[in-house]
């Protein structure tokens, strides 16, 4: 939640209180249990005491889901340009360079072909640690290419989202990644291939309002925030008291916006089952 609140689209002012100090990433925000990295990895980064689902980086997610050695990455060379020469408190170019060094990724989305329990699929996996998983031109381009690869091979596309929304530093071009990815999904569907969309925490803003909501099947991880507007912007715009489960996967299931909430330990077998059902074209 600390990471999510950093990119929340809220209207603040100078005197807004500072966010609370960041806890250690391996300390469970729900029950306070602390884990060594290897312990957490062995538990698929889920708290063994309270079932809190920690964020999973894209490469780790692929390790969890794909058959060992089956993932063949595509379009790894793509990098963002800086079309607006954007500068806020720092330049976009600096932010990109830092994100690449910190994550070892070229952008917030990894794509490639893989097998899950021997079922072929294309994977598109987002990484929240790369600029809040925000969607810029490279993210949109990679997603569109993943749709095209899946269509060419006649196999389903599995997307795992974790994103705060559009990447502001690319301005209107970031917004245009929404219609771009929507058009790509339409082409994928017309080729007869399925999109299985998994929403991890958080899937908000422009991601929820584009390809992530267009899956033939929508799955969510427990506790994932899935809202178009973040809780703070809703609270400040409407002055409404928010329900405790505002925007969470559980609330979305109740209101009919997802098909199922799937615990991480069940995600691989669940996807495998769906891949067998939708199968090759």
């Amino acid at each position: 939640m600390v990471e999510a609140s950093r990119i929340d689209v809220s209207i603040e002012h100078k005197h807004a209180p500072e966010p609370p100090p960041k806890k250690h990433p391996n300390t469970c925000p729900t029950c306070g249990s602390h884990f060594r990295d290897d312990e957490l990895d062995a538990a698929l980064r889920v708290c063994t005491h309270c079932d809190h689902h920690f964020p999973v980086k894209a490469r780790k997610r692929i390790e969890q889901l794909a058959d060992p050695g089956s993932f063949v990455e595509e379009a790894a060379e793509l990098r963002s340009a800086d079309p607006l020469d954007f500068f806020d408190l720092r330049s976009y170019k600096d932010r990109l360079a830092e994100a690449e060094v910190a994550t070892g990724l070229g952008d917030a989305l990894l794509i490639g072909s893989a097998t899950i329990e021997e079922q072929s699929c294309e994977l598109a996996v987002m990484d929240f640690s790369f600029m809040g998983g925000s969607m810029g031109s490279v993210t949109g381009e990679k997603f569109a290419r993943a749709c095209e690869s899946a269509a060419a091979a006649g196999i389903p596309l599995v997307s795992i989202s974790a994103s705060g929304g559009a990447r502001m530093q690319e301005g209107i071009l970031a917004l245009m990644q929404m219609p771009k990815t929507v058009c790509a999904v339409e082409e994928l569907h017309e080729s007869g291939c399925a999109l299985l969309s998994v929403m991890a925490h958080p899937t908000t803003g422009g991601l929820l309002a584009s390809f992530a909501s267009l899956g033939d099947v929508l799955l969510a991880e427990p506790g994932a925030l899935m809202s178009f507007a973040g809780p703070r912007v809703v609270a400040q715009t409407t002055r409404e008291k928010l329900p405790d489960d505002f925007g969470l996967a559980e609330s979305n299931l109740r209101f009919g916006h997802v098909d199922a909430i799937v615990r991480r330990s069940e995600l691989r077998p669940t996807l495998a089952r769906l891949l067998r059902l939708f199968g090759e074209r």
Partner: protein
Amino acid sequence: MANDAEIRLRDRLSKLSGLDLLRGARLSGELERLKRQIDRIEAEPTDEEIWSKVELARHEERPYTLDYVERLFDDWFELHGDRGRGDDAALVAGIGKLEGRTLALVGHQKGRDIKERSNRNFGMAYPEGYRKAMRVMEIAERHGCPLATFVDTPGAYPGVAAEQHGQGGAIARSQAAMARLKVPTVACIIGEGGSGGAVAIALADTVLMQENAIYSVISPEGCAAILWRDAGERQKAAAAFKPDAAHCLELGVIDGIVPEPVGGAHESHDEAARLLGAALADAFDGLEGVPQAELRARRRQKFRSMGVLA
């Protein structure tokens, strides 16, 4: 009718934008306006000029969707409701005739006085609004009438009920519905093109933008709050993300700029409507006769190619 000087100007403009010229300038007597447009596009707008566009786009007296409908459409019939939950007054829809052509129209609608503003929720639609839009898109498709959309919203409404009714999914599906249409579609940003709530009805064959409209990924205030941690830095934010029409044209996001009366569309609703009507008719003329499958493939290809890579 077009003389040599006008043809040369049009040519220059086309080269500048690399795109078709769609400025409502097919009428005679538009030469001065064309010159003015060229000067504006060739000169990089200053930060102050960008901010003045934000203010003009939000001007209280700016014409809204129904002001244009009243002036441009004959036999207008408004359609209400999403056939599920309700009728969202922040997004209006209907059918009417524009220069003899039956069109379906979907557009955001802000209110003029305090009471109407609140009834229309300041042009911020709920999922119900986008579902009404999709219903009218289906009518257009079924009866083969072209679809026009007018975009004028600060954004989709950020509220508890809106989320519970599926705001994100509705915006996604409205875009998908537009990507599937086989009839010609023209969108025009007539005021604020605010984020997902705007693009939900803007996945069109031709996307136009009025000269003083803005189209952006986030409001200047929202961007300033997040990146500068101070909503007061909104002018800096607007200058940084460049929501003005000239920049949108340069980035390939829109296909043409529709001129406004001198001083802005609020100065003369009649003149603003005349210019918008001419640009719309031009745009639909340009799409006429394109085979359906090609039209749709082109539309998808256009959006597929948006973005800048290193």
